[in-house]
């Protein structure tokens, strides 16, 4: 994918404009947010969109895509792509349900095993990409099918319902907590998980040596290798992280929906990629940020919410969403570059 790239920026004095543009995905978010307030339906003088529980809903609704998109950001930063995340989410949702309900495992071992499965699955895809050198698009396209097939087989093809309790065929009540709301019943736990993941990722990318390697691999793989960056290890680690986070999202998904179904997460990969790209990360690799991705995910969430609150016809919604995605991506192109 060699679509035009912004190669070299002259940075003698970082102008106000340049600084603004650094945060433009946030501006896109603010623009959509303001538009949402303006177009929000009102009931009894109250602007429905900004009501506390609606906002909580918005963030809860994007928390899974958000968690996945953080992992996707890593993968895209090294110039790869991961189409398997939605299927891995489904696999993890099924895994959580089957282990806790059908196999009567405890909370911790189940969660650990499910996360480990995501990690290993991602790492294997990393191996195929980094060591055999198959393009990640293809590896993860195959990974998607494999994960989906495994989920179907593991679940017996049916959604596995999760009931809570201490009896047999019941999941531990500690697991249910993950789906609850806290801080006065306002902030859903999934939102907190998303926030923790996002903040951890931002900090990690800022301070770790690993992150330098990651950006270098995405920026110029050959140069990175010759500079002594452990390219293969970085790639495997990144795909493993992405698989791990998709798994985490799957656990969150299962607990929110009280079941694990092998059809969970179909198409989530495209939403996650859209969030990453709207957030200003280049599909060519080497530049981008998790903060942008979070803004991108929230933008999509607000957009979905305001369209739904206004009961826009679902077909028209498809058109509007397509146009907004293009507009948001076009905004990225407005950067002051050569």
């Amino acid at each position, binding site marked *: 994918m060699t679509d035009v790239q912004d190669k*070299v920026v002259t940075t003698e004095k970082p102008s106000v404009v340049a600084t603004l543009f650094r945060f433009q995905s946030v501006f896109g978010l603010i623009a959509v947010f303001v538009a949402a307030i303006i177009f929000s339906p009102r009931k009894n003088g109250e602007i429905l969109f900004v009501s506390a529980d609606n906002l909580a809903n918005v963030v809860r609704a994007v928390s899974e895509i958000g968690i996945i998109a953080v992992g996707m950001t890593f993968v895209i930063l090294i110039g790869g792509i991961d189409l398997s995340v939605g299927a891995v989410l489904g696999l993890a949702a099924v895994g959580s349900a089957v282990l806790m309900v059908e196999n009567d495992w405890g909370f911790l071992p189940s969660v650990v095993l499910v996360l480990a499965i995501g990690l290993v699955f991602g790492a294997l895809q990393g191996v195929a990409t980094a060591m055999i050198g198959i393009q990640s698009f293809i590896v993860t396209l195959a990974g998607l099918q494999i994960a989906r097939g495994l989920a179907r087989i593991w679940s017996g093809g049916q959604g596995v319902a999760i009931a809570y309790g201490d009896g047999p065929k019941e999941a531990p009540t500690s697991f249910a907590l993950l789906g609850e709301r806290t801080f006065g019943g306002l902030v859903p736990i999934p939102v907190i998980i998303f926030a923790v993941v996002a903040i951890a990722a931002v900090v990690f990318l800022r301070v770790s040596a690993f992150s330098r*390697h990651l950006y270098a691999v995405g920026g110029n793989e050959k*140069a990175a290798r*010759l500079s002594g960056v452990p390219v293969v290890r970085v790639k495997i680690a990144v795909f493993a992280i992405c698989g791990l986070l998709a798994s985490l999202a799957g656990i969150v998904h299962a607990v929110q929906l009280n079941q694990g179904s092998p059809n969970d997460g179909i198409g989530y990969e495209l939403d996650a990629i859209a969030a990453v790209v709207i957030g200003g990360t280049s599909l060519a690799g080497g530049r981008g940020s998790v903060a942008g991705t979070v803004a991108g995910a929230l933008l999509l969430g607000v957009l979905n919410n305001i369209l739904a609150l206004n009961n826009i016809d679902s077909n028209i919604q498809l058109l509007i969403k397509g146009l907004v995605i293009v507009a948001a991506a076009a905004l990225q192109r407005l950067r002051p570059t050569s």
Partner: protein
Amino acid sequence: MAESFDLVRMVGIGKRYGGVQACHEVDFVLGAGEVHALLGENGAGKSTLMKILSGDVTEYAGSIAINGTPVRFSGPTDAQAAGIAMIHQELDLVPGLSVADNIFLGRELRTTVRTVDRRRMEREARELLDRSGVSLDPRRPVGELRVGEQQLVTIAKAISLDARVLIMDEPTSALTSSEVERLFDVIRELRNSGVGIVYISHRMEEIAKVADRATVLRNGKIVTSFDPRKLSTAEVVEAMVGRPVQTMFTTPDSDTGDELLRVENLKLKARRPRPGRRDPDGISLTVRSGEIVGLAGLLGAGRTELLETLYGVAPGGTRTGRILLQGKPIQPRGPRQALAQGIGFVPEDRRASGLVLFHSILANTVVSSLPSYGRLGVIARRMERAASTRMADRLRLKFGRLQDEVGTLSGGNQQKVVFGRMLLTEPKLLLLDEPTRGVDVGAKAEIYRLLGELAAQGLGVLLASSELPELVGVCDRVVVLRDGRDVASFSTADSGEGELLAAAMGQGAVFDEVGGV
């Protein structure tokens, strides 16, 4: 020489890139049948000026007239239609297309039914290549060619345009002297048929040989214009840099220490041989600490491949022979292992294999030595900045801020960043592949000075270069490679460029299989 009239007249040309004034009020005149050298330090604005003339850069101040007619090009196609062709500094070829397809890209020869006339293109490409002195199969994909061969293809491509104005932006940076001589023959031929040629090069010795006139740019402005045959190299250099440059080449005293690297009959048999690659086929040599050993050879002699093999990045295959580092045998496995053992490598093509152009100077400098700036995988930003600043000072890097993108630096300064990155790893042995390609004389002098300093501290250097004056001037000893074998070894104290060249070409060379001292 044909009578000169103003084939090209550029008046008051100006171009800004953000805060950088690449060209400022430049007046430039080129006559028919004239070879006009354009000189200047890295970043002086030479390429920018010529990109404006060739229609690549379309937004600029000032005016251009061709044969007295004012023109304003909206793209390279316009310029080509007006008879202006340019050989770009960065080799802009399409790797997947054949040599012939590349030469005729954008103006393919057609048959009567408008399809591509492949056979005629191949025939004409072969003729063009023969004319510029290479026998390349025109059907080979350009991606498989060596840098030097690619440069010859771009030259053939430019010549094929039958232009009235031919701009050559560093056409010889990857060529060795014999190919350069052939090119000069072509240039003379073109000049005699009335073509106006702009010739940009950092190799001073070439200027006096081909140019009728020379213009020097500094910081985007013209500083002087003169007849190069009437000035000495030192005077030309002074005009470019703005101050006298005393010693171009360091003359290191051969105060060398213990044996650092010993290569014995090294052979690499690639598992999947690639056409045009010249893997080591029996190379022996030694490098002592404090010694700078040169690697000479013609295009495709196997210098790059030797350095890649030593650094452990050559393609897989069976390696025979021995490599000893400080007396201990090593098996090069890759950059990480090499760096850990104290071997650093500066690759030939800094843009493709050296830098992440859109990342900061800081990030590019420290990437090889990250673990030393913090613990537990967390980077201490202050340490990292300090190291980077230290290196920038030491190399006299010309830059704005450490956060600036490396791609905005001039070529020579980019080279220093790759260089500095390796120095931060504190190597014992540095493998340098054409480290001064496209670097201006001033910066070259600094790099040489630095090499001398490092050698004095006990570093060993293996330096591959196509520039004979550089090899003779900088190295203590030069090993000549031909067809993947070492064929001669000279001490620079008692041998000159002529002998090196003769050995490289295989004419009456001393056959010295042992290599070593």
